[in-house]
């Protein structure tokens, strides 16, 4: 039999290819919804539409990627990945990097349409564009906190088979934390944008700590 052997070793790239094929359909739907929202924003200049655009555009992609990664949906695929020539720690790194990438991918899209909307409709926000962009970026706190809580919990015995329920609870917690920080920020009279920055910093810390914990859990897990 003829031989056409390749030598490009980059397992995480290989896994990203599978992930891309898994999520591309759902991501296109999210993109389509975002375009509709963005168009509505540009036409109406309604702050509520802006909030929806920021929410769906930034929280949508990581949610879609999380679902596409498999876990409880494809347990055999997860087991097969472990048996391939990939270290367990590299699999965790791939998961966290993919999620971080998915969490940031919507920011430029939402930011561009926000900036255009801001130019077209002067009273889109009560605050300036820089604060608006900080607030947009802070939306990333929701997926980062959600994933930061969910991924290690799903790797424990307690989380086995309860991924859907855990996802819901982690989402609520992740949504509540920035909201709480925002409310407290207003009460304390903090400058606009500061609570968003605090949420952002906290979410990054949670995500990094979660990464270290999940790596430790994954190294001892049975699949």
């Amino acid at each position, binding site marked *: *039999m*003829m*031989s*056409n*052997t*390749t*030598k*490009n*070793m*980059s*397992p995480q*790239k*290989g*896994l990203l*290819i*599978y992930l891309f*094929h*898994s999520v591309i*359909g759902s991501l296109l739907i999210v993109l389509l919804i975002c375009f509709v929202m963005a168009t509505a924003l540009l036409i109406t200049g309604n702050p509520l539409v802006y909030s929806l655009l920021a929410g769906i555009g930034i929280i949508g992609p990581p949610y879609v990627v999380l679902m596409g990664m*498999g876990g409880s949906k*494809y347990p*055999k*695929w997860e*087991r*097969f990945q*472990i*048996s*391939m*020539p*990939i*270290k*367990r*720690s590299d699999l965790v790194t791939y998961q966290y990097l993919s999620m971080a990438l998915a969490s940031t991918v919507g920011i430029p899209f939402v930011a561009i349409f926000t900036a255009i909307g801001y130019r077209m409709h002067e009273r889109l926000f009560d605050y300036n564009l820089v604060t608006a962009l900080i607030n947009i970026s802070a939306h990333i706190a929701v997926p980062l906190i959600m994933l930061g809580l969910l991924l290690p919990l799903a790797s424990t*015995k307690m989380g086995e088979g309860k991924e859907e329920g855990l996802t819901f609870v982690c989402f609520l917690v992740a949504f509540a934390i920035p909201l709480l920080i925002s409310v407290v920020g207003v009460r304390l009279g903090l400058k606009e944008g500061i609570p968003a920055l605090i949420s952002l910093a906290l979410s990054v810390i949670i995500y990094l700590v979660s990464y270290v914990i999940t790596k430790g859990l994954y*190294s*001892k*897990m*049975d*699949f």
Partner: protein
Amino acid sequence: MCAILEVKELTKSYEKSDFRLNNISFTIPRGTIMGFVGENGAGKTTTIGCILNTLIKDRGSIKIFGKEMTDTSIELRSDIGVVYDSNVFPEHLTPANIAAGMRYIHANWDNGLFQEYLLKFKLPEKKKIKTYSRGMTMKLAVAVALAHHPKLLILDEATSGLDPIVRDDILDVFLDFVQDDNNSILLSSHITSDLEKVADYITFIHEGSIIFSEKKDVLKYNYGVMRCKQSQFEKIDSSDMLAYRKHDYQIDVLVADKEVAAKKYPNVIIDHTSIEEIMLLLVKGVK
């Protein structure tokens, strides 16, 4: 002959189960097929899970090509092809998608060889796996497992639930694979006819312990079953019996050397035996 896989005193237990893999040991020589047989829940998949690092072993050693298998043994795992009992790939992928990813995962991925297997197995490259039949998904799994030139193929019930034609196709591929003396196969199955057809060695596992690990020809040509009446059974030395099983009008006695037994007990009928009968006597009979 140098061993390609050496499992030594492997132990694995689970928190939520009484099942335990008890100090199991066996070796697979190069260029051979090891049939790994046992009833459901005997410990075959647990053993394979420990070999493949999907399960964390409690104790023991697993050496592949003479090197200890650990999580960081990436090169060792590159030389292993795995086929599970059902489809492992996400169903929306096509064989072309799978190949696109595998070339970055396996250093020795051979796309030409993969294409040849797709042609050989008549698998459409652009169709999603969800449109495949069970036989087709298993053939695809075999193609993926072989397309990176593994030296050890691990098959966990890979032929279970397949019709005889597909099973035969796949078994022929396995036989081709071990034509290279450097290649070996660990074939876990409870379909003993498959093992009789292709295996060189048989390792029998029962309730987490290895009952025997023996050349198939030894089992086939040396082992035998004495068909005894009660009066004949009572005269048999217990040290000659590996196991016995009482039926309504007959007692079957498993012996390790039927020629010796024939000389010692000339009045008793001694039959050739099959792997299935040996399994049944050892599991259901009295030892």
